[in-house]
């Protein structure tokens, strides 16, 4: 086995055989489906158990007509406002709606009384109801028949379809793209940071335990550094692969246990979003078509493309930052000293991460998004987000090309700092010293 191979093997084995690795690798995938499954379970339970709330209505003109649904039961009171208020406070009712006789052109004086602050969902629900009824009345008063009014009511679900140059059509969904962008860029960010820090810790450990002098009498410092970077990366990739397999397997298991079907999902979604402004039959139709559409898009995702792009940016981003972390580890004597140098490394990562949320997600093809996804320090996170929304091939190629240049450059620079740094003990190092090391020929 080559020497780099030996170093890779040691770095890999020593991490994979640790109990903490085993724990993290198994617990995280258990945790995700457990949390998601738990949330769905409770959402379903809550919507099943939810009691109808009573709402009193004083309709002075007798023009309004509220339909009971599974959340609210309406009861009209033929009392004056003051008496009704007393009756309301003594009752269990949730709210009291006061609808005075109003001027259609200028409706004013409608009040909702509640015992505690009503939720935004509840108040906007009542507002919508009242608004649409007033609108109906306005339409009627301008001579539109009941029949025509029913015809006017529409519910649409916008299907978005991507058309490629070749005329091929693919179902798409901004929501799904958003989810994928979020997931992939977050994963890249997290992995690079976690495993980059691990490299740094490994280097500091070797340096402070003084073993490094023995190792570099057999291996070139550069080989040791590269071996470490690759060894730690393989641990990360292995962990990621195990997570993906376990999460898929366990999620499937969780869905099976809860007998998860679209109807349940619809109720769950309804209760979670609190959106049932339409009658339940309409909602069911609408939600079903939405679910079907999302599933359609999810099945249509070019997984192979995403995963290979992800693998590229994960590995290249990791190499770029991992080399810098190795250089920092070599320059300091302990973790505390490392902090002053890790700041400038994590900064561009954080900028890339925040920039992805502020610019790339809302506007994937914007100017800032373009630059974030081209500059190697922010590209791994930003480009992963853009890829989910679709990105021109030349931009992807340019970004990848610069990524390669970027990590070759940081590895070269880190190697020059590393070879001197690992043999230095007790020297206070600043940026000037680091620059001097980069320039020194040994």
């Amino acid at each position, binding site marked *: 086995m080559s020497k780099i191979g030996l170093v890779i093997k040691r770095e890999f084995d020593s991490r994979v055989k640790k109990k903490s690795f085993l724990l993290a690798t198994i617990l995280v995938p258990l945790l995700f489906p457990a949390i998601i499954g738990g949330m769905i379970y409770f959402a379903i339970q809550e919507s099943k158990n939810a009691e109808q709330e009573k709402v009193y209505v004083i309709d002075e003109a007798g023009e309004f007509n509220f339909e009971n649904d599974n959340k609210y039961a309406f009861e009209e009171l033929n009392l004056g406002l003051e008496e009704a208020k007393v009756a309301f406070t003594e009752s269990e009712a949730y709210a009291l709606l006061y609808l005075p006789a109003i001027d259609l052109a200028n409706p004013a004086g409608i009040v909702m009384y509640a015992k505690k602050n009503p939720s935004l969902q509840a108040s906007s629900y009542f507002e919508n109801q009242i608004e649409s009824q007033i609108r109906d009345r306005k339409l009627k008063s301008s001579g539109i028949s009941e029949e025509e009014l029913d015809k006017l009511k529409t519910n649409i679900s916008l299907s978005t379809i991507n058309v490629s140059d070749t005329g091929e059509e693919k179902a798409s969904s901004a929501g799904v793209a958003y989810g994928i962008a979020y997931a992939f860029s977050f994963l890249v960010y997290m992995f690079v940071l976690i495993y980059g820090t691990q490299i740094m810790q490994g280097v500091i450990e070797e340096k402070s*335990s*003084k073993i490094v*002098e023995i190792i570099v009498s057999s291996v070139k410092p550069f080989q040791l550094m590269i071996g470490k970077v690759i060894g730690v990366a393989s641990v990360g990739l292995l962990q990621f692969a195990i997570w993906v397999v376990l999460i898929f397997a366990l999620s499937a298991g969780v869905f099976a246990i809860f007998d998860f079907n679209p109807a349940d999902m619809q109720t769950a979604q309804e209760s979670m979003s609190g959106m049932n402004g339409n009658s339940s039959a309409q909602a069911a139709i609408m939600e079903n078509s939405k679910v079907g559409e999302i599933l359609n898009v999810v099945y249509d995702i070019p997984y192979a493309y995403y995963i290979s792009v992800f693998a590229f940016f994960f590995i290249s981003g990791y190499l770029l930052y991992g080399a810098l972390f190795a250089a920092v580890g070599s320059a300091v004597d302990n973790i505390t000293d490392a902090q002053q140098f890790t700041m400038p490394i994590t900064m561009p990562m954080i900028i890339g991460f925040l920039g992805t949320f502020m610019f790339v997600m809302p506007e994937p093809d914007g100017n800032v998004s373009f630059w974030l996804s081209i500059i190697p320090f922010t590209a791994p996170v930003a480009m992963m987000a853009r890829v989910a929304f679709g990105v021109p091939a030349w931009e992807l190629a340019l970004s990848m090309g610069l990524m390669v240049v970027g990590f070759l450059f940081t590895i070269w620079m880190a190697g020059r700092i590393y070879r001197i740094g690992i043999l230095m003990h007790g020297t206070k190092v600043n940026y000037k010293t680091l620059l001097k090391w980069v320039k020194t020929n040994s």
Partner: protein
Amino acid sequence: MHILTAKNLNKTFHQNVALHNVDLEIPKQSIFGLLGPNGAGKSTFIRIVNQIINADSGQIQINGEDLAAKHIGTIGYLPEERGLYKKMKVGDQLLYLAQLKGLPKKEAVQKIKSWLERFEASDWLNKKIEDLSKGMQQKVQFISTVMHEPELIILDEPFSGFDPINANLIKDEILRLREKGSTIIFSTHRMESVEEMCDYIALINKSEKILDGEKSKIKNDFKSNQFTLVHRGNGISTNETFNLESKVTFGEGLHKSTLKLLSGASSNQLLQELLNQKVDIVSFQEDIPSINDIFIQLVKGDKQNTPTS
């Protein structure tokens, strides 16, 4: 035949000269003491031989060939600052280091087994380094240095951190390894072990080699032709053969005199002179300087010669 020849080695770290025109020849199958005060340049020399750093100029040859990557397996190196992977098991650790030195796995496993047996440490194989005592760790470290049977073994302060029993054990191992054909370079400022074990020495001070050669010859060169005479009776009269440098009187009529031969005279002539004088000789011994004396004399003399800055 020399296992290692260094010619005109120079190394500078940012204006600090670490080695200046250093020449060294290390004979095969010898124990070679590399002496010098802290910061003299010993470690720099050792690091260059171990190819950890490169010399700015000059040449190093191992067995007549220019130093190259293939010589890594020829050299065993025990640095002054000891260290092993704390969380790694003894067996895994030794195997890793042996493989890095180029030993095939099968052979390495066998060697590790026999070395641990030699040190009565076979049951350490699956213990983590951090669970061993400091002395045990040092033994593992020593094994890691010599297990691939290197032709050239470089030991930087080998006895620091060993208790006297283990230090003796290591001493015996070093002698045994030389018997088997290895050459040992010893970098130290502990003179008693140099006196005891080294065949050759070189003294480096302020980045320059100021002395080297066979130990016995160097000691001979530094003889001051002084003799210590313990005697009864007070009647030493000096003449053209010798001078009386000093005299100390003990109880019971015993005296200790330091005599210095004058040029041309031999120790036999001196003895003859003394026999003719009215003294009873109790003991007669030549004053041979210890390596320690030579070391201090040279390093101090060097300091006096250079203006203090």
